[in-house]
């Protein structure tokens, strides 16, 4: 086992980092995922767990604290990123947060492309909010390998605290688990002290069993987080995919003692969805995984819906989009 270190950005982080381990093919190949049973579990979960009133408000605040507020567009500029960063610092209107007693609430991180790291860092200076950068030829991950590794190194050098890498889907689809492991190992090494989130692009992996196997391989190769999607695939985060990944995380923790984080990304836009995801985390992994060092939402429009719900909680009246600041 290599030495472990901890991230410096988030005060609540106390977890030793997952150092990874040798590729254990017996373990990888023993992974099972029965799709219909998994879908049934997910279909009934929203009906089994429900949080109301002040509990719902508190849970929604927790969801905000776990958001990776994201902009990943070709037309991103320093100005656009500054606006997003301002929203990250003050995600909810001050009077609402005051009513809730939740002053000082921020999002979990801001997530941008490499060239936006510097503007993001500037805009977030002093906030303690980490900057995450997507990397390794995001979203397809098909650029030359040495460039993908170099991109990570550049982003770390530019001050990214977290790196969201994309895996080579072809390694999964062809069953080349060793190649996936080696690639992930290299990415992790290139990240250094920055945390690495492995984006599996689950919508392109073909089966839940592949999702389970890819999750295990990436964790064995030292991923700090496993993440569903780039947000650019036609199918992004879903509850069944999440359940499979959470079960893989649980098994990895049971066997190694290391906690790996989870980030669903893409398609989560409603406050209600966020509550379901939080309850899924709580049920499958426990309360420890409800903190931002182990759980993030990759989302852009989710925050707006949560803001409206929180205002409704405070005033009793339904809110409208224009009553909340743009991010």
């Amino acid at each position, binding site marked *: 086992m290599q030495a472990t270190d901890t991230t410096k950005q988030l005060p609540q982080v106390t977890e030793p980092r997952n150092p990874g381990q040798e590729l254990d093919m017996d373990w990888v190949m023993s992974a099972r995922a029965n799709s*219909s049973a998994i879908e049934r*579990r997910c279909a*009934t979960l929203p009906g089994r*767990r*429900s*949080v109301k009133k002040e*509990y719902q408000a508190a849970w929604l605040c927790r969801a905000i604290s776990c958001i990776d507020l994201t902009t990943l567009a070709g037309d991103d500029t320093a100005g656009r990123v500054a606006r997003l960063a301002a929203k990250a610092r003050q995600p909810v209107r001050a009077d609402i947060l005051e009513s809730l007693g939740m002053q000082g609430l921020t999002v979990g991180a801001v997530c941008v492309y490499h060239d936006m790291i510097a503007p993001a860092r500037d805009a977030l200076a002093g906030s303690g909010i980490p900057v995450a950068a997507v990397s390794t030829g995001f979203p397809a991950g098909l650029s030359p390998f040495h460039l993908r590794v170099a991109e990570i190194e550049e982003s770390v050098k530019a001050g990214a605290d977290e790196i969201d890498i994309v895996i080579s889907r072809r390694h999964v689809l062809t069953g080349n688990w060793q190649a996936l492991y080696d690639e992930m190992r290299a990415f992790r090494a290139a990240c250094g002290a920055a945390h690495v989130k492995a984006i599996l692009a689950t919508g392109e992996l073909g089966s839940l069993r592949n999702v389970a196997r890819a999750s295990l391989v990436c964790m064995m190769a030292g991923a700090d987080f496993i993440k569903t999607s780039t947000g650019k695939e036609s199918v992004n985060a879903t509850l069944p995919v999440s359940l499979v990944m959470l079960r893989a995380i649980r098994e990895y923790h049971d066997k190694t003692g290391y906690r790996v984080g989870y980030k669903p990304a893409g398609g989560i836009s409603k406050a209600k969805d966020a509550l379901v995801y939080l309850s899924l985390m709580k049920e499958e992994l426990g309360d420890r995984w409800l903190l931002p060092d182990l759980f993030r939402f990759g989302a852009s429009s989710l925050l707006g819906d949560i803001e409206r719900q929180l205002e409704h909680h405070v005033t009793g009246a339904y809110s409208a989009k224009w009553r909340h600041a743009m991010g």
Partner: protein
Amino acid sequence: MTVKEIFDSMDYGPAPESAAEALAWLVDQGDRFGHFIDGAFTDPGDGFDSRNPATGEVLATLTQATQADVDAAVAAARRAQPKWARLNGHGRARHLYALARMIQKHARLFAVLETLDNGKPIREARDIDVPLVHRHFYHHAGLAQLMDSELPGLAPHGVCGQVIPWNFPLLMLAWKVAPALAAGNTVVLKPAEYTSLTALLFADICRRAGLPKGVVNIVTGDGMAGEMVVAHKGMDKVAFTGSTDVGRAIRRATAGHGKALTLELGGKSAYIVFDDADLDSAVEGLVDAIWFNGGQVCCAGSRLIVQEGIAEEFHRRLRTRMENLRIGDPMDKCIDVGAIVDQAQRDRIAQMVAGCTTGHVHQVTAQLPAQGCFYPPTLITGLQPSDPLMQEEIFGPVLVSTTFRTPAEAVELANDTRYGLAASVWSENLNLALDVAPKLVAGVIWVNATNLFDAAAPFGGMRESGFGREGGWEGLRAYLRAEGKPKPLARIDPFEGDGDAPEGLDRTAKLYIGGKQARPDGGYTRTVFGKSGKPVGEAPIANRKDIRNAVEAATGAAASWGKTTGHARAQILYYIAENLEARADEFAARIDAMTGGRKGKNEVQASISRLFTWAAWVDKFDGRVKGVPLRGVAMAMRAPVGVIGALCPDEAPLLGLISVMGPAMAMGNASVLVASEPYPLAATDFYQVLETSDVPGGVVNVLTGPHAELAPTLARHAGVDALWSFSSTDLSAQIERDSAETLKRTWVNNAHARDWMGAAGEGHAFLDAATEVKTIWVPYGE
């Protein structure tokens, strides 16, 4: 708690469902209920309190039905029935559709009232029970619509007496009422005394939906009222869901009444987990198997059978999962396990677990509510089949577990039970799962799933889990009988005569057991006389030990015969016909000599045709693939019953025997046939045909002797899976009574004649009787 505190703790907090609307409905009814008879509520009479088991508070006062109440309900149902049946399929479909819509419109009221009355989590009442209820009425509206064209020649029984349990009060009502009404029957239903409120709300809905008065009648009360309903002479059909003991008592109480009967009783359903299963999904499945409705489910997967190599890991994951179960106020939307229906039930569960001296008992550590009837989810590992808790139904949130080594051993362990209701099989290997599923003795089998239900998919048990199916075409059939008025069947006594030996060389007829000719155990023989009083031959007199030997032979043969391909079985049936025809004249003469008639030739020809019929049916009685709301299939397969005993018709010595043997053989059963009592020699000649026709030993066993003496032995023999009687001796009451202990399926003639030469001598009634419907659910998807 402040938002900030909850933000740190991330507790769920309370999520209470409002009881206001349901309580308001009770207040509107005066909190006191009479019965619902002839379209109106009677004045409340002396009765009992209905309580909320989670709090102990009284919800309403109900009326205990008297004999006069039941009489009035039956009379109202009787008056209403002819007109209801004459409405025709479409007319009834419109009413069933209206009921479905009304239930759907008042879904939340039904769900909340159910939870208040029963203690099940509101989530289950709301998301499972009530949706299945209106789905059941919708589905049966469709069956009513199609019945006239699809089920010609069938008629409703008339008035149905139905008694239902407290675990799924409204759902069981739907399972009983919808098919009865669809088929053109009227009903008198008695809900369980603990849980009558949703039935009374349903009565209110019937009234408001404009259901003709008298079509649905509901009487309330305890077991005494239930006895009055099932034993009432005015009932044509009785249906019961509940405990095996009460089912037995009902079988005895209705014996010989001529009533059709279906029983859906207890279970100890196996939950088999192979080492290649998706273990986390299998663990999650157990939550729905044994902690659904607090384990108070007849088909609860209560017997975990897990492959030895993964048992420890599987139990570990299961215990971890158990800690996340939330137990408490069933009206909380965030609760997994609610209250046990009554203190007496809770105490019974606690007593059974306390009496378990072996294995390791694990209970969840969560705090139970201070008051109300709660019992913690429990896992008992390390038990053996010989431990009582592996065999006895607990009917609570208690899972017992044992291990197996091989697929064959898993099947053996799963079937090592008096029950046969349901089973689950978990494996990612399709070959394994689909091989094991049909081998399980159970009416419902879920592959990689558990507790899936649908109105289109037949549900019901085998062995001491009862008989009959509910749901789909198969379930509807239980509410229909053959059209027309049956003719009485007079007893046919043997001819008497004097003892001169028949002409020619002596012939010794024997019994035919296990493919061999056997002398009767008792060593007695009787002379068979013709009409003129001259001896025709001599027939052995079988006794109880011959029955024992024949059943043993049949049991040995049944397993492999059931696995023989349909094509092979057909070839053997055709070959029997071929060999019979070669001796047609001899058989015709024998029949004429015994009966004193001249139609022996016709009977032989009809027998050959009948063998062709059953050879034809062998591979054409297809199961059905059900259109269930699921990505997957639910296959209602037709499995052999096993060992069928039969008292063959007296009046048609050869044709009768073949009419009974044919469907049994064709559908893969072994049979023990007691030949025509007055005319036994066609049967003893016939075994020579069997001997020359490649019939494997034990598949058909032929005995001769007095029906009245042999019937009780067959009826009480635990190894006989079904018993048919077409004897002209009226043994119906005795057979039904004697079969109660083992709850075997019976098919008796109630002293009614059957036209063996005509269409009534073959067809669907025989196919149904010779098969068990086994519904195998196979969800799929990668």
